[in-house]
């Protein structure tokens, strides 16, 4: 009982303190440009009335979905292949390790050069930002499969495609899901940056547009809050994957904490 009360009271309390502090600091500074929480909230209401907000949210989610799903569809098979075959790992891993630390933001000029000011540019950037966490997690997952599982499978004459379906895929799934979750978080970070430069719709565009068209910082912060809330919902949704029966074993210690 007490712990469930704590679970609600603690976060509500901390968040309320944060909002109160924000409010107080804006009043104390006497700023007429930076919004108070109330201004930001009315900003959200104004955006909703305006009608473009839903379109912008859909536009951002669409870009993230396409780029992210492409990364999942290519990243998981590629990662399984590179992780399983030692020769493929030696061949591809150095290239992956060089490309991986390049910020997706650095690819923005290249994306504009290749795809112009269209949806394809942010989709490409999302794809780039999600594929590396997925690749890295999948490769590590394959290489970490416990030898006993592979030996037990060999002992029962499970080879080839059956080995892949019955052992390799389920054994790696928890770690792959962790990679996917990380990738989606990064994708949501990157879509905002990409939309600030490469297109004229979406939540990122909303923010930069509100700033450029009359320093409407109430709308900037309103957009930021929406981005945070949608990001939270996306993460909660993907966390559901971790509760599937077949992968729960991989998250036991995490759940016990």
């Amino acid at each position, binding site marked *: 009982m007490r712990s469930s009360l704590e679970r609600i009271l603690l976060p509500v309390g901390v968040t309320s303190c944060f909002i109160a502090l924000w409010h107080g600091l804006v009043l104390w500074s006497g700023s007429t440009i930076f919004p108070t929480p109330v201004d930001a909230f009315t900003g959200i209401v104004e955006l909703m009335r305006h009608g473009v907000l839903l379109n912008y949210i859909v536009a951002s989610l669409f870009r993230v979905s396409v780029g992210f799903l492409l990364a999942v569809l290519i990243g998981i098979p590629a990662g399984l292949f590179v992780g399983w075959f030692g020769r493929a790992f030696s061949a591809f891993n150095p290239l992956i390790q060089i490309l991986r630390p390049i910020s997706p933001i650095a690819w923005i000029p290249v994306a504009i050069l290749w795809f112009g000011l269209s949806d394809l540019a942010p989709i490409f950037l999302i794809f780039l930002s999600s594929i590396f966490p997925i690749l890295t997690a999948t490769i590590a997952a394959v290489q970490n499969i416990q030898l006993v599982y592979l030996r037990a499978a060999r002992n029962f004459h*499970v080879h080839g495609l059956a080995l892949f379906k019955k052992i390799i895929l389920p054994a790696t799934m928890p770690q792959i899901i962790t990679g996917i979750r990380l990738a989606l978080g990064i994708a949501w970070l990157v879509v905002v940056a990409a939309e600030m430069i490469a297109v004229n719709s979406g939540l990122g565009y909303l923010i930069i547009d509100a700033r450029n068209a009359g320093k409407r910082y109430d709308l900037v912060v309103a957009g930021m809050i929406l981005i945070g809330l949608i990001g939270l919902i996306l993460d909660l949704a993907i966390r559901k994957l971790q509760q599937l029966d077949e992968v*729960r074993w991989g998250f036991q210690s995490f759940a016990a904490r």
Partner: protein
Amino acid sequence: MEGTSPPKILLRDLSMTFPGAMNGVPLPVFERVNLRVEEGEFVCIVGPSGCGKTTLLNVIAGFLKTTGGHVLIDGEEVLVPDHRRIFIFQECGVFPWLRVDENVGFGILHSPKENRRRIIRHYVEMVGLTGFEKAYPSELSGGMKQRVEIARALAANPDVLFMDEPFGALDYFTRLRMRAELVSIWEREKKTILFVTHDVEEAMQLADRVVVMSRRPATIRTIIEITLPRPRVLDAQEYIDMRNGIFEAMGLDHSGLGSASDAKKSSD
């Protein structure tokens, strides 16, 4: 008896050297191991930790290639693992992503559905896990997981079981019960069992014969036949004598003072 029927398992001058395991120096693990195991026999291999017992068992099972000598089972050279001989792992090889029933049925995926279900039910019951068929291994205790692995092995109807310290990670009382259950399963199913352990007491409880290995590079020190009827009484004089025989073969004084007095002598 010996020599009249063909042996189930025959090790002939079996040797294993890891090439350049340490700074390029070849590391001999075991040397010239000769052993004959009859059909339906329960043989324990004991030896000090790290002496190469596990490696030996892995070679016999076909998971590792030997660097010298031969492993013959039913007169055929063993080169790869075979589903007629199932290995039970120290680290627990039960698949955590499959439920208990799916794990037990893993070795008989190609059996007709009804038949498969019957076999699963039979062996789940034999190891005392009825009611836990739909549980995942992470919901089970260590002892229960080890039973799942034993049931999975038996369901595949192998004629040989290789067991590598299968009860090593269990608590004392669970270990005692698992030993008793293993003996009763073995008496019913008449499998040939090769069981590796560092626990002399465990070997004494289980085996027809105890093979005592030396320190690495391991060789067979001696083989002791345990003729006592099961279940074996721990404080019978014969039992104690045989156990002390194993301790002596392992180079340990049964009182545990042998090494201390040796050390004193050498310092004098």
